[in-house]
């Protein structure tokens, strides 16, 4: 027993030495850290985005004559794990740039750490305005929620002819709370009336009580800007209860799991989104879609496309900066104008938010179908 534990300690020490010695040998690569929810409540986003990053990496594997090395850390869909992941990427892996997280709440947990270390980070899909607010090194590849909520409200009033709306919000997510408020603001401004506001929480499965309350209020539409699992279950229970009004939601809906879980109940669900392959216009997008569908054997999705854009933005910025210094990459990112990305033309603003267009999609015949494009 004594001997065995001695050997174990020896092995541990050896392992520790090996890991300490490791990074020194790998100077000829550029490390980009990726932190995404690969498991947990929003795992579908993480897995789609990782697929997209891999394809983008394949399309542009080198920068400044050096190979780009990707380091992936799972956040388990959890805010604390997200913060830990960024600490690990910054302190242990010594990455020059970071891609992630997929959702706003987790990105807001991760960003302060990369900000303090002056490492630029690009989130593919965190749409809450607070994600980049007051931060010099925080960027994103997507539009932000005030725009999304505004477009959704206009679509509800003009296309769906809604006069009254019920809003169902996931109170545990910064994204859902923010987007819900932006929608309500614009909807009321356009003369609409919110007849019912009710709350759910990530992980809830029973929404029957909330939905019965919605039913009593008899709205023209339901606005439910939540993530795909909750939206799918909610739609299913709403239809079972006999609520047949259109359901409108945000970019969080665009995951195949929505259709797999929701089935017929999510048909005719409209949502504001970042990307639809039919609306893709740039050369980069066409190349990406081709490679994605060859390699992954499925249709190119919005989350993968935005994650690819986050990768391209970061890699282009490193190229433009001609260095791996965090501040230089940051300045190069801010200077990216009219970049023809996968999800459209991206112009990065000084505040870390890009100016770009939005698409409206709906679910039809078990698929995401493109409806229209809205320009900023």
């Amino acid at each position, binding site marked *: 027993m004594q001997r065995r534990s001695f050997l174990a300690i020896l092995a541990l020490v050896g392992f520790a030495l090996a890991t300490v010695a490791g990074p020194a040998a790998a100077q000829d690569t550029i490390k980009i850290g990726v932190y995404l929810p690969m498991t947990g409540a929003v795992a579908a986003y993480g897995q789609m985005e990782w697929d997209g990053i891999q394809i983008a990496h394949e399309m542009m594997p080198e920068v400044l004559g050096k190979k780009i090395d990707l380091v992936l850390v799972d956040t388990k869909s959890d805010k604390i794990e997200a913060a830990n992941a960024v600490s690990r990427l910054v302190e242990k892996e010594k990455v020059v740039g970071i891609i992630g997280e997929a959702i706003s709440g987790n990105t807001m947990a991760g960003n302060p750490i990369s900000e303090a270390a002056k490492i630029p980070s690009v989130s593919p899909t965190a749409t809450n305005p607070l994600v980049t607010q007051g931060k010099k090194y925080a960027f994103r590849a997507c539009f932000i929620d005030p725009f999304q909520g505004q477009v959704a409200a206009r679509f509800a009033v003009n296309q769906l002819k809604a006069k009254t709306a019920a809003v169902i919000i996931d109170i545990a997510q910064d994204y859902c709370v923010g987007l819900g408020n932006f929608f309500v603001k614009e909807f009321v401004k356009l003369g609409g009336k919110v007849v019912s506001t009710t709350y759910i929480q990530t992980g809830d499965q029973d929404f*029957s009580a909330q939905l019965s309350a919605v039913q009593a209020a008899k709205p023209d539409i339901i606005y439910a800007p939540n993530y795909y699992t909750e939206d799918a279950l909610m739609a299913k229970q709403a239809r079972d209860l006999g609520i047949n009004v259109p359901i409108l939601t945000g970019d969080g809906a665009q995951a195949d799991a929505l259709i797999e*879980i929701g089935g017929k109940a999510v048909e005719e669900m409209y949502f504001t989104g970042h990307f639809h392959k039919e609306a893709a216009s740039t050369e980069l997008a066409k190349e990406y879609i081709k490679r994605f569908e060859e390699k992954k054997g499925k249709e190119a999705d919005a989350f993968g496309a935005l994650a690819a854009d986050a990768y391209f933005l970061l890699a282009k910025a490193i190229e433009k900066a001609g260095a791996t210094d965090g501040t230089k990459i940051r300045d190069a990112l801010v200077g990216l104008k009219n970049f023809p990305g996968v999800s459209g033309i991206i112009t990065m603003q000084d505040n870390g938010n890009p100016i770009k267009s939005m698409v409206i999609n709906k679910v039809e015949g078990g698929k995401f179908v493109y409806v229209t494009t809205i320009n900023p």
Partner: protein
Amino acid sequence: MSATIFFQQLSNGISLGSLYALVAIGYTMVYGILRLINFAHGDLLMVASYTAIYAVTMFSLPWYLSFPLAIALTGCIGILMDKVAYKPLRDAPRISLLISAIGASFLLENLALVIIGGIPKGFPRPEIFAKVIEILGVRVQVLTIYIPIMTLVFLMALLYIVYRTKVGKAMRAASKDIETTRLMGINVDRIIALTFLMGSSLAAAGGIMWALKYPQVNPFMGVIPGLKAFIAAVLGGIGDIIGAVVGGFVLGLGEILLVAFFPELAQYRDAFAFVLLILVLLFRPTGIMGEPITDKT
């Protein structure tokens, strides 16, 4: 609130409550005999749901074969869990058992995560469970009627076994005093295994019902139902089978009616359940149906 909406909410509450009750019975049975809070009980819901999904989608079995299969298999996993995680600790302090139970729960969750992955799956809902009928303006899923009936049928069967058969007598004896029961020549380990089989099968039945009603299956789907069932069991008086059923209904109805009367408090639904647990533990630790505490080692 109109009468229709009220009855709608009532039916929502009854169906949620009977699901809690079904899961709580298993919790309480194991506690009754081993004084063990089996935290892995909720995860058996998940195991059963995945088994049923794979039986239906991969082996294309009809639901009336795959559901019983999933229940039987989960029952066996329950026995296995007892053999691996609890039996070696039979004479250890109770706290070791509790830690082992938490470990078993994490093991099941993470095994599912590694093997199946974190993206939730839809649950195949057979047509006969998906139907919706309308009674006087109240829309009721037929499932909402089946679930309480199933719960009552299981309850009756269980009460029969526990109070009218020899095995049940042995179970009740073991719950009073394991050592003396063993001295009477009863194979206590077999009785405990049987308890796990029954408790786990009930969890499995609950899991399948749960997945039919909320057709979304992921490795962590059992956590919240497990906790809620635990609350229901404590509420009713842990160790008491009828108490578990009563506790389940009280909790389910309470949650739904809270949201029904105060929609703006909807986000405090889970908080309500846990506050209820704390209050019960503070003021009536033996629960609604509970017997007075007897110190048992």
